[in-house]
């Protein structure tokens, strides 16, 4: 069975790199983007991943705008918000998505990822 793919949207380079390493260690295929626009470009190039880990505050295109773009394209893409922003909880609630607050326990994030992949929570 091919490994599940995860797309990381995170503007903090060190964090993006660490998340990628740790997720790869857990057996995931990982793509990463520094903002929503890059993520859309990667999707166009490689196709939809199994899950997106989305930071809220990013330059060029932030997390909320990325989610709206996904909706507008009618894509079936489970997503988890991973954010330090105080507004993240509200945005998650409005969009009906799971939210993991930074800084987080990696195990907590992993649990949320596995739960989303199983449930297939979709951006409706």
């Amino acid at each position, binding site marked *: 069975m091919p490994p599940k793919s995860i797309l990381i949207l995170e503007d*903090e380079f060190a964090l993006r790199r660490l998340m990628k390493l740790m997720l790869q260690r857990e057996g995931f295929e990982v793509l990463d983007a520094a903002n929503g626009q890059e993520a859309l470009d990667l999707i166009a190039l490689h196709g939809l991943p199994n899950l997106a880990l989305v930071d809220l505050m990013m330059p060029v295109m932030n997390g909320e705008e990325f989610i709206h773009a996904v909706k507008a394209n009618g894509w079936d893409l489970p997503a988890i918000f991973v954010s*330090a922003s105080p507004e993240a909880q509200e945005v998650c609630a409005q969009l009906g998505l799971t939210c993991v607050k930074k*800084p*987080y326990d990696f195990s907590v994030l992993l*649990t949320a990822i596995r739960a989303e992949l199983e449930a297939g929570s979709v951006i409706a």
Partner: protein
Amino acid sequence: MYHPPDEPDHSSARRWLFVVAASLALAVLVVLPWVGFQRLSAANRQTHDLTLVLAATNYASSSITGAISGPVRSFELSGRETDYQQMIEATEMSEDALYWLEDAYQAAERVGLADEVDAYLESSYEFLLQLEIRANAVRKGADPEKAPNAGAYFAARRAHLRDQDYLNARIVELGGELDEERTRAMRTAWVLLLASVFVAVGCFVLIAVTETKRNRRQMLVAETRVAVAERSAQQRAEMVNLASHELRNPLAVMSLAAQMLQGTAASGGDPLLEQAANDAYAAARRAEALVAELLDLSRLDANKLKLVIHPVPLDLVLGEAVSLTVHHLGERPVAVTGATETAVMADPGRLGIILRNLVDNAFKYSPPGSEVAINVTRANSTLEVQVRDQGPGIPIADRERVFERFERLSATQHVGGIGIGLHLSRELARRMGGELSVAPSNSGTCMRLVLPQASRLPEAA
């Protein structure tokens, strides 16, 4: 940042000014009309006096004229004794009439007719005297036209008539003058009354306008200050949001990196590396907790603190608080007793802040290695968490002061911390429908946290 200047405090001077202006207005309102109506009153009094003089003069004149044209003429023609007696009566009545005029003399003086009345009286008495002399001569059989005092009689009669005419003319003239004076006085009185009303109203309007302008200015200053304060609070809130994001990202890197190291060290069997990774992870968690506290404090100030309250298992949050404190401040006995497996209605992150602060303080303000006791009791619809240490305790006088922001008791200045933990913890407890206080204790410090009990435990994730 612009701060509108304070208005100098002239409230005392303004009060005095108001009192003086009000007094002046009242004085003008009273004095001016009084002056006006006094003049009118004087004119009225003079008119009354003149009327008196006129009446007395008319009475005297008519008596004398009546006497001459009636009884005197009759007697002079008839010479009869009865006519003589009637003439005497008439002259006596005339004299009585002159006495009336004498009685009105003071009134005549007041209206400036004293000389005229004097002259008329003198000439009238003289005329009556000559009339009597002439009448006596006629009584003795003399011809009236050839009476011994004929010359004096006619002279006295001319003088009397002259003085009577002059007095009457003066009375008429004076009457006209007094009428004009009364009219003028009335007009002046009304003008002064209206003027006083205008002045008084003007004073009050001036005061009212001045006060209104001042109040408007003060309102404008206050509104500007409010706007500045709101803008400042907004800017602070925006800065807080930015700081939150900027601080938490590096902390997230440190935390993840430490977790990665923990995994690597554990699988590599290197206890020293594992301990270092554990310490780094705990430090990152602790830094994140402090950032969360500072951000909550800022949100509190900006009135933008939002809590998400739901059933929270107390034991999990309490366990994490104790674990973080032990990692940071070292191992020591911590006895947790009571109904810990209960849920409270709370915001989980903020409950963690409160419990961590209480446990932290218990560790910091008691001798190293001394036991910290945590007891949980149920009471009706609330849950009470007591955290007790074996330190020096908090003096009764300081038990409320410790909850003030940045307040550090002098006995604890040497202990690390910036003095926001208890202040923030109490605010958070209150916003979750609970309370935080210093409980009475015979020894050490006992902090009491009360929170609403949840009716059920939350569902497992």
